């Protein structure tokens, strides 16, 4: 964490724009703004903080578009003023009348618009999509998010570590393990402590179970959106088996509140390892034919190959995490690229592809399931003995930051603990912040009917983004 002046702040923005470093986060608080940046030749992410007593600061997005939504959110949440921000419409604050929003104008002959949401047809989160189409072809998608803005950063201010950990774990329920992990590691970084080795390995087991469950669910759902519902049915069974195993081993189907600052809240029961091993065996046996089916079904391939292409250059510029980035050539995985226990002691591959289409994102998921199964096996085989939780002692004011790889990409958590040991400020940045805008780009030129497929292959979080 380093304090910078206005000139240094602007210089960092320029370096992002020229591709020398990647923006990992941009957030604020009254009188101060922060950016998290990964320099391409640096081993770790740096946080730069700029004091702005009058709440105004030079806009990063004036030169680097991926920062636009983050800066719009900073305006809404803290009244900060990014000078030079190219788009000053509100983002997370809908004001008294949520239907009044100036969508961007669209001009051209024979164009029509389709407005979808916030309440969608399926069981999904709320958001609004404004399609402009020329016949069947989408010429522009504009998203409007913020419907599930819950005021998480506001609730964090003054929360005890226990309360804050529960909140962090509910930023995006599908990634509750990853959020709890990033939060716990940020607290531990701030306090200068490490969770016991056994706790780190148990955290790893939970994180991989969560990844497998989500990838299974999405693999099935993507195929279902291409009218191949048999995959959804079989993946649904496998996903359910993962959740039941999680409930039996850790006491909660989604493993909420199991990872806490200082370690884990529960150990593995006596039959836990055997249960997880038999789950791994079952998935291996049943998942392989599903992958064969996917690969051999022309009608499925017809829908996914060449659909919703995200150009590698955009993925790199936006620092797209997770399968979205890795299907478009961006070789970043926080478990490897940043590295944290237990992954620094485990063998695994980070699958990367270049095509950037729905099919590539599907294959990244498939390969990651295989990697996660192997990772869990390694962890069970070599699980260190010992305690699983250490007590947290307040040390006075301190700051910490951590990254954890959720199934959809890296989650960044930055926080400051006050003198009383409570949370002063906590910012949680979902991978979706940098993925949502890319979905707008990926759908361009595709037919409207392919949107559900593209959307599901990204599967961005609304709640994680809306905070």
């Amino acid at each position, binding site marked *: 964490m380093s304090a910078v002046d206005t000139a240094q702040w602007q210089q960092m923005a320029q370096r992002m724009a020229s591709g020398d470093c990647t923006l990992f986060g941009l957030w604020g608080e009254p009188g101060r703004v922060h950016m998290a940046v990964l320099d391409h030749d640096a081993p770790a992410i740096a946080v730069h903080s700029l004091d702005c007593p009058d709440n105004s600061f030079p806009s990063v997005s004036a030169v680097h578009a991926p920062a636009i939504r983050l800066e719009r959110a900073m305006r809404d949440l803290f009244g900060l003023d990014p000078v030079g921000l190219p788009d000053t419409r509100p983002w997370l604050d*809908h004001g008294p009348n949520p239907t009044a929003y100036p969508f961007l104008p669209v001009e051209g002959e024979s164009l029509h618009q389709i407005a979808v949401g916030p309440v969608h047809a*399926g069981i999904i989160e709320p958001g609004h999509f404004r399609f402009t189409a020329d016949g069947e072809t989408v010429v522009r998608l504009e998203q409007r998010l913020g*419907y*599930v803005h819950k*005021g998480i950063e506001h609730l964090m201010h003054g929360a005890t570590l226990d309360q804050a950990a529960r909140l962090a774990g509910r930023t995006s329920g599908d990634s509750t393990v990853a959020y709890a992990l990033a939060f716990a590691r940020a607290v531990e970084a701030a306090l200068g402590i490490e969770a016991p080795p056994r706790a780190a390995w148990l955290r790893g087991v939970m994180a991989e179970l969560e990844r497998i469950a989500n990838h299974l669910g999405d693999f099935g759902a993507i195929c279902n959106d291409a009218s191949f519902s048999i995959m959804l*049915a079989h993946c649904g069974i496998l996903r359910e088996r993962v959740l039941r195993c999680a409930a039996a081993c850790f006491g909660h189907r989604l493993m909420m509140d199991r990872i806490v600052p200082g370690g884990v809240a529960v150990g593995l029961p006596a039959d836990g390892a055997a249960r997880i091993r038999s789950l791994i065996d079952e998935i291996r046996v049943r998942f392989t*034919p599903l992958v064969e089916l996917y690969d051999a079904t022309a009608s499925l391939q017809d829908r996914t190959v060449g659909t919703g292409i995200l150009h590698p250059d955009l993925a790199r510029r936006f620092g797209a995490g997770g399968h979205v980035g890795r299907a478009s050539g961006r070789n970043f995985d926080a478990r490897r690229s940043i590295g944290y226990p237990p992954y620094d002691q485990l063998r695994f591959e980070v699958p990367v592809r270049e095509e950037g289409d729905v099919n590539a994102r599907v294959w990244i998921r498939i390969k990651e399931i295989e990697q996660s199964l192997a990772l869990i096996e390694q962890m069970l085989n070599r699980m260190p003995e010992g305690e699983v939780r250490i007590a947290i002692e307040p040390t006075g004011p301190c700051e910490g930051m951590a990254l954890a790889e959720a199934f959809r990409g890296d989650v960044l958590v930055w926080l400051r603990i006050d003198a009383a040991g409570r949370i002063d400020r906590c910012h949680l940045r979902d991978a979706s912040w940098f993925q949502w805008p890319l979905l707008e780009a990926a759908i361009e030129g595709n037919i409207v009917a392919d949107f559900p497929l593209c959307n599901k292959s990204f599967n961005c979080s609304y709640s994680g983004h809306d905070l």
Partner: protein
Amino acid sequence: MTLKTLLQGLRPPVTEPVPALDDPELAALAAKLDRTAQRRLGRSLSIREVDAGSCNGCELEIHALNNAFYDLERFGLRFVASPRHADVLMVTGPVTKHMRQALERTWRATPDPKWVVAVGDCAAGTGVFAGSPACIGAVAEVVPVDLVIRGCPPTPTQLLQGLLALLQS
């Protein structure tokens, strides 16, 4: 070989037996449901899900109701795409200020007789986001609620028990 391996996964059948309605709150609800409406609907309900600010955890478990273990449709219960086709609104989340209007509109678009099921601690008004200035709180503060299914998130079995209570009186 493919099909055979897949089918082996379904032997013995994975479908769960009907869960017992052992919760007195649910039994009481079942007893007080309007009988005329019940006769009109028979043993079938169409459900429209509304996320009013959930963390998406509740949605994951609602989704699970459709998997082969819980197989919601065998009870005559099914999710529909429009509130105009729905008998039941299943609402999750602490009702963010930004979702209030959409929830009210969805409720008005649902024809009578209708029921509202508040799903999860957030929708009950007791979740982790309670007290946030960005949230209204309990679903019951915005639309009339007939049944609350607590949990963070409630398990599919708990959800199923609640829905079956709506069918049995």
